[in-house]
């Protein structure tokens, strides 16, 4: 029996504020540094894919970040799986409440990465394409958006999904469809990226941002509309866990 199975937290649980602040600091720093790097080198060293500078300053970054993110994601998800809760019926109410705090903290991290990726890094790509003609799929903005931002987005989603389905008793026994949809959207952006790049090399060299070739991304973004169902599932259980038994709440 793992330690978490027999743990009974006597004091009221708290959200993992320190870990959350640390995660936000790390994510904020990585994206901010990346952004400064992009700002200072994209238009000076990132315009010609066939130049030596491009290979040094941008392709090296791509080759480094892909395996790092893959290993990091696989490591975290693997650890969550192998330390999963095996006796959900024995989880105390306070421990279950604490785990809900953790899941919501993870979804908050997911939301931060969603904002950074879907707004700032996506529109950096929009702005970039207006003033350059692409000679590669691996432009400086694509390397930041599709090979850093989206993988981080996917990783944050899968980590939260895995944590919930290996730790929360109500999620262990079944799969939350809304949660699955919210996580599946970012994952499917990668195959859609293949379609997008193929289309841009084949029949649509321009970069009208509202063009039909981009609508697949929109459809996948709409997967987050299922977040409402996830909120309902989480809040329903949180309300049950936070009822005061001796007198009615409120």
């Amino acid at each position, binding site marked *: 029996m793992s330690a978490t199975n027999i743990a009974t937290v006597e004091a009221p649980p708290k959200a993992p504020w320190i870990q959350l602040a640390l995660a936000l600091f790390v994510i904020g720093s990585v994206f901010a540094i990346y952004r400064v790097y992009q700002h200072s080198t994209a238009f000076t060293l990132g315009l010609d894919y066939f130049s030596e500078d491009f290979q040094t300053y941008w392709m090296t970054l791509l080759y480094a970040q892909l395996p790092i993110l893959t290993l990091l994601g696989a490591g975290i998800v693997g650890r969550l799986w192998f330390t999963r809760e095996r006796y959900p019926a024995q989880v105390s109410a306070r421990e279950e409440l604490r785990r809900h705090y953790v899941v919501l903290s993870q979804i908050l991290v997911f939301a931060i990465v969603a904002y950074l990726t879907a707004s700032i890094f996506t*529109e950096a790509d929009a702005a970039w394409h207006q003033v350059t003609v692409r000679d590669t799929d691996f432009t400086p903005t694509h390397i930041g958006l599709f090979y850093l931002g989206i993988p981080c987005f996917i990783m944050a989603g899968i980590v939260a999904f895995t944590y919930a389905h290996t730790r929360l008793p109500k999620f262990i026994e079944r799969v939350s469809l809304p949660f699955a949809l919210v996580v599946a959207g970012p994952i499917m952006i990668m195959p859609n990226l293949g379609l997008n790049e193929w289309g841009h090399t084949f029949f649509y060299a321009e970069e009208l941002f509202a063009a039909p070739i981009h609508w697949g991304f929109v459809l996948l973004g709409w997967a987050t509309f299922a977040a409402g169902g996830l909120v309902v599932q989480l809040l329903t259980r949180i309300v049950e866990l936070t*009822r005061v038994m001796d007198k009615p709440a409120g």
Partner: protein
Amino acid sequence: MAQDAPAAPAPTRTAVATSAEQRRAYIQFDLLIIPLIVLLFMGIFSFHFALLVGDWDYWVDWRDRRWWPLVTPLALSVLPGVFGYLLWDRLRLPVAGTLTILCLTFASWVSRYLNFHLFADFPMNMVWPSTYIALGLIFDCILLLSRSFFVTGLFGGFLFGLLVYPLNWPLLAPFQVPVELHGTMLTVADLLGYEYVRTAIPEYVRKIEQSTLRTFGEAVTPLTAVFAGFLNILNTWFWMWIGYLGAKSVWLRKIT
């Protein structure tokens, strides 16, 4: 196999012992959930709007009388519709219109400044985002007063289409002033567009003022606004229905 979640059973145990503990727990959840929702709205709305309205909102010389007032409300009422259902039906909060559009506005200003101005060197008065906050306020007020999704879609959806152009007119008017360049009359917005060359959107993909539009005189703008309004009634109802589906608590039984 999908199934709707059964009604919540009576709890047999709780994680809080007193009302004070309960209040502390709720405060912590609020501190997690409120920024989560705001950031998610900023990300989703920005992404959705960029890829459906995109250039019509990016560039001052794209805000024409035909496409911009038609495309914009259709994309703009999606999140108020979807999350309006969730926030009103489940939490009795008539704030989705204002909140989602405020999130879009904030995200748009940050992005236009960081990306289009600082990164790609376009002047801010060429790439400023339009204002839509009043539409969100109207949507929420109608929902609050009518307490009906039907009425909100009917009047709120219609006003979304009707008011996009007049709301932005004070901001847009200075860019519609005619100027003469080399013997040709054009607008200040057109001139900005020609001066700041966008290599990936050459003039032939600039979808503005197409077809016989210029022969219609001043009737074009109200015509488009009313058409957009009628279309947007159906659009808003549709997205409220999507919000109803999205707010369902559906569980899948595990295969193993």
